[in-house]
Every structure is written in C-alpha cells, then in structure tokens.
C-alpha cells in the first residue's frame, strides 16, 4: 500500500569515473560540518511535520480527554459518549458498512476488469477512461452524482433509466387517473379494481365504461370501440370492450357506446371464478377483449388495480435508506480504475508459461482464473484492499456533498461526523477530538505494517 513508484522506478544514472585530487580537510571537522549541513537540509521538513502534524496528533489525543469547553478533564467520557450518542453511533455504523462493502466490491470489480481488459485490443483506452475519475475532485464527483441520482425521472439519469427499464418489462399503458362508471352492473373494489356486480355466464357481453382518462394517457393507436361492441359472443365466449365513455363536445350519452368514443387499449381484464383468477387478457387497440373456451358456470369480470396504478417513478436514491449505497456507488465510479490498473500491473508480472501450460492441459478460462491467477495475485489484491480500507475510512467530501441536508444524518460517517461535531454546529471539540483519535486508531495497523515493511526492505 505504500509508494509503489518508489520501488518500481529506479534511478538510472551513469556512473562517471572518480576524479582525483581531494582537498585536505580534517576528517572530524568535515564530519561536524556535514552534520550541520544535513540538519539544514532536513530542518524545514522536520519543523513543519513537528509543528503541524506530530504536535496536533498529541494535542488531539490530550484534548479528547476534556469536555466541550476544554476546561474540565473528563477522562474517557468522550469515548463513552461516542458509543452512546445516536448520531455518532450512526456514523460508526455507516463507516463499518463502507469498510465492509466498498473495498471488497472495488477489489472484485477491479480484478474482473483487469483480467477482461487484457482480452481486447483497446485495453489502454479503456484503462484511461476508467482511471479518469481519479483526476476529478470529490466535490465535482459529488455534484455529478447529485445530478445523476435526482429522484425526478425527468432530471436524474438513473431514475430515467430505471423507469424506462421498468416500463419495458411491465408495460406503460396504465391509466392512473381513470375510474369506471360504477352503478348498475359495476362495483369498485377496495384495492382500486372494478368488477361486475352480478354473475356473468359464458355467451354474454361485458362492457366497462371509463371516465377521467387524461388525453395524454390514451395511446396513439386507440380507435373507436363502437364496431367491436356490436360483435356477438359464442356460447363459450365472453366479449366486451373497455372504452372511454366521453365524447369531446358533450354529444355522448353516459353508459352508451357512442360512435366516436375511443376504446382503451392495453387494459388488463381478468375472469374470476370462485374468487380465483382463471383467465386474463389485455384489450386491443379498439378496447375490445374476449375470453374463449370458458366452461359453463358463473364468472366475475374484473379490471385489476394494476391498470390504475400510478406510473413507476424510480427509486429514492438520496432518501434515508439508499443514500449510503448511492454514495458508495459514486465512490466506485472514482476508484474502480485505480483498483483495475494496480491489479493489472500485478497481472502483467504473472509467469506467462504457467498460464500457457494450464491452457495446454485443457483448463478453461474460469479454472485458470480461479486456480492460478487469483492465488498468484493475492499479495497485490491485499495491497489494493488495504489501501482502499484506509481511503474509505477518511471519506468526507462525497458524503458531505451528495447527501442532501435532511438526509445528512442518515449518511454520516466518522469523517463527516468529526467535522459536524467540532465545527459544523456541534461545537463539541472534546467529542470531535475523540472521533479524530478513533480515526487515527483505526489506521494504526496500517502504520505498523508500513514501518515493518520499510524496516524489512532496508535489510
């Protein structure tokens, strides 16, 4: 997880021949002067690190044992409060979700894409495209995804896609505002459906006069129902029409199918017998429907409530329940390229002959992936995973920008909570410091890992 560049890029420098003639200076004096020079070189860095990094860490640790005002020592109270205060607890829970979900998803996605992209000729272009979001600020990414996640399907591209997908599979031809003319022969069900009130036997005609249909909801292919309504059913058939019982201009008679009155296509009609739906059909463009081969008995005919369901509006991406997954989605957009490129670099160092030998032995791609690629890549995958865990712990901007004000508290994570508690109105810098210390404690394992790895590399 540490600097890969530092190990992969090595200084290439030509070695010139040593030139003769060293001016004589006493070795001791030279050493002392050397130390002074060395300290001068290191001094600016050490000063800044000491004053702005090391001292603040110590200060925050100390501050976390004091109350909001900073005057009273409260021992571990802030740490106890952290696990009792509902808002902070929520932040801890959300951070856990982030840490459990995002790095694993990213590593998996990165691995799959890294393996697949090697099989196409435009691999470089693809890698470039997926890596590009790494250049974009979290703020800009946040704005991008606030736009994409907008709940209105006329604004947010995600819900626009969700709605069109939904409508492709379950049909758009619903009449959300329509009502049937109830009264003689028709009753309204509690669930919003309409059914015949009397038993119907095969050989009959059942018509459903509807009102309250918005002109925009009538499909373009709808045609007058008059003709279809005159057809007679056979003895094992039930025929009828669903039509708009309204003539523009007011010339029509309620309950009568006038010549210009339109059929309502795409309306679902059900035949119900003894409380069970035994058959269902959909009306044609003139609003007609028919059931054939009905066995004798008494039926109820019904327009189920689904005809009048309000149109599907997509998901509330930025609502309380989905907001965290939605922000994780934006995070995936940014970091997948990183995971893919890093894993791809590891992939290119795999021994080609091992893969070829396995192919020769008849192993299929999946077996090669599962038995050879993944085990050999394990160290790289670990590095990617751990790096992402560290990054995820500190995620701030994305949550701060994407979660709308009222949902902020549902989306909060440790980094945003630390901000809110310390500066954003909470003004409890004791608790804020404690959250900061918790963040630090969470990255201590990575710290130890880095130091150990560095020490080992120096031997």
């Amino acid at each position: 997880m540490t600097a890969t560049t530092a190990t992969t890029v090595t200084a290439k420098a030509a070695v010139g021949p040593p030139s003769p003639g060293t001016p004589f200076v006493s070795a001791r004096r030279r050493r002392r002067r050397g130390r002074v020079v060395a300290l001068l070189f290191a001094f600016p860095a050490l000063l800044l690190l000491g004053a702005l990094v090391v001292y603040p860490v110590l200060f925050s640790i100390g501050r976390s044992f004091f109350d909001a005002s900073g005057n009273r020592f409260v021992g571990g109270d802030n740490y106890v409060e952290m696990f009792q205060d509902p808002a902070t607890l929520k932040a801890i829970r959300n951070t856990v979700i982030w840490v459990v979900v995002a790095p694993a998803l990213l590593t998996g996605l990165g691995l799959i894409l890294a393996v697949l992209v090697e099989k196409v000729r435009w691999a470089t272009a693809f890698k470039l495209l997926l890596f590009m979001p790494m250049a974009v600020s979290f703020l800009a990414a946040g704005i991008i995804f606030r736009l994409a996640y907008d709940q209105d399907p006329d604004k947010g591209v995600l819900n626009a896609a969700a709605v069109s997908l939904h409508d492709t599979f379950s049909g758009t031809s619903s009449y959300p505002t329509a009502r049937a003319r109830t009264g003689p022969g028709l009753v309204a069900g509690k669930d919003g459906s309409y059914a015949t009130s009397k038993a119907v036997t095969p050989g009959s005609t059942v018509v459903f006069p509807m009102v309250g249909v918005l002109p925009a909801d009538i499909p373009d292919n709808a045609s007058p129902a008059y003709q279809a309504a005159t057809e007679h059913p056979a003895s094992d058939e039930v025929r009828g029409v669903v039509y708009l019982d309204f003539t523009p201009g007011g010339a029509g008679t309620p309950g009568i199918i006038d010549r210009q009155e339109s059929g309502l296509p795409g309306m679902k009609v059900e035949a119900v017998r003894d409380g069970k739906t035994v058959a269902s059909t959909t009306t044609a463009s003139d609003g007609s429907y028919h059931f054939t081969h009905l066995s004798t008995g008494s039926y109820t005919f019904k327009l189920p409530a689904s005809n009048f369901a309000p149109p599907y509006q997509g998901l509330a991406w930025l609502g309380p329940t989905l907001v965290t997954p939605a922000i994780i989605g934006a995070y995936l957009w940014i970091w997948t390229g990183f995971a893919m490129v890093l894993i791809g670099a590891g992939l290119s160092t795999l021994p080609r002959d091992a893969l070829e030998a396995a192919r020769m032995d008849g192993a299929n791609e999946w077996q090669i992936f599962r038995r050879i690629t993944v085990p050999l890549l394990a160290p790289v995958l670990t590095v990617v995973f751990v790096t992402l865990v560290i990054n995820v712990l500190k995620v701030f901007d994305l949550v701060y920008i994407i979660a709308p004000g009222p949902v902020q508290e549902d989306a909060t994570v440790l980094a945003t909570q630390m901000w809110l508690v310390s500066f954003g109105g909470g003004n409890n810098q004791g608790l804020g410091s404690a959250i900061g210390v918790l963040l630090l404690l969470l990255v201590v394992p990575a710290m130890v890992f880095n130091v150990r790895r560095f020490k080992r590399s120096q031997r």
Partner: protein
Amino acid sequence: MNAVRRGLGNGLVQVFLVVIGLVWLTPLAGLFVSSLRSSEDTAEGGWWTALASPGQLSFDNYSALLENAGITQAFFNTVLISVPATLLVVLIAALAGYAFAWLDFPGREPLFLLVVALLVVPIQIGLLPVAKLFGQLGLFGTIPGVVLFHVAYGLPFAIFLLRNYFAEIPKEMLEAARMDGGSEWRIFVQLVIPVGRPAIASLAIFQFLWVWNDLLVALLFADSSSQPLTVALQSQVRQFGSNIDVLAPGAFLSLIVPLVVFFAFQRHFVQGVMAGSVK
C-alpha cells in the same frame, strides 16, 4: 469448436466492457451537457433530452460564470493555493529526502521511521489543533495558512517517495561529485534533482491534484476572500436543483484543469496516484 467458443466469449467481453465504459462516461457527459443548458431547459427535462435538440446548448452559462466575481476570485485562489503548495512540498521534501538518503545526522533512522508512520495519519486529526495554532499566528482564514497545512500533510508521503528514489542513486556518482569538491547544495541542485526528475514529476502531479481538488482543508482554513473553487461551489450545493446553471459549469471548470493534467501526463499521473494512494 473451442475457437468458436473463445471467439464468442471475446465478443461478450467486448460488449461488457463497452457497456462499462459507457456507464463510466455517462455521469461526466451528463455534467457537461447540463453545464451547457439554460435553467429553464433544465427545469423542463433531463440533460439527455438536449441531445435531441442541440439548439438548447450554448456557452452562456460559462460566460455568466466568468462574470461572476466570486467564482473567478475562487478560481484564482485555487491556483494561488495549489501552485505554492506543490512547489513547496517538492522543494522541502527533496531537501529532506536527500538528507535522509545520503547525509549523516543524529536521529536519522528513527526520524525517518516517524515519517513512514505519519504516511497514513488522517488529516482530520490535525484540523482542530492547527486551526487554534493558526489563529494565534494570524494565519487562519488566509491563503498561506491553507498552503502550509497542505504542505505539512503532503510531506510524509513526499519525503518517503523521494528518499527512496534518491537512495537508488549510485553511491559512486555522489562520491565522485564530492571528490570534485562540490558542496552538498551544488550536488543537490546539479545532480540529485536532475536524476530524481521522474519521481519529482509524479510527486508534483499528485500533490497538485490533491490540493486542487481539496475541499475539507480549505473549508476550515480559508475565509470567504481566500476560498478556492471547491469551497465556493460547496456553498452553492445547499440550493441544489435551482442552480444547476451555476453548479454544473462551475464543477466542470474545477475539473477541467485536473483532466488536462491527467491527459497530458498520463504516465506520471498514474504513477503518482498509485504511489500516493496511501493518503
């Protein structure tokens, strides 16, 4: 048979990757198209409807943005913060990196281990104490304050990267230069810096983008006259929805510089980001 299956599989892979690529491109394309539409058009329908009527698109939002004094000031502040913060980190870290790699001074080993340990320190823990310190020094709310904070928190990684790179310089080369009677400063300027150019380039790009894209640090340390673009836009996000005609071009303005850097220096960029991902 096998070849046919493999060909079919490859076709599926291509389709899958094209779909993924489109999914990745769409959010950015959406932002760009949105930034070219008037607020009236935006209120009427999604940005994709503009693809059918490209007449809607114009750069009016951008010209309005350039006349918005707050935004242009914020853009210049971003430059005034990013450039010094990058140069200072590179300079200070190169000096320290050289000292840690090749010069002898007391406490060198433990101090460098401390730098390695500081690599992953979350900046959150520094916000409050440094804010107090800057308050006393009169740096709070100023551009130098924001710059100093970025420099300090950029240093551990920068020193680590450059020290490791400089350590690979052949010893004979440095010895030779010393034999020639070059002072350490001259050796540093004339030998170490030129040899270290690739690592310095990666570092500079990484640091520049890190600072350019930062919101959190500037949100705390900058006041309204020194705030960078990210902070200025962030304050607009509260009225999200009614001001897409400001937010979308603003966001695009803030990301166009990083994108140019990205495409101009792909290799260094990728290396820098890879190396710097510890932060």
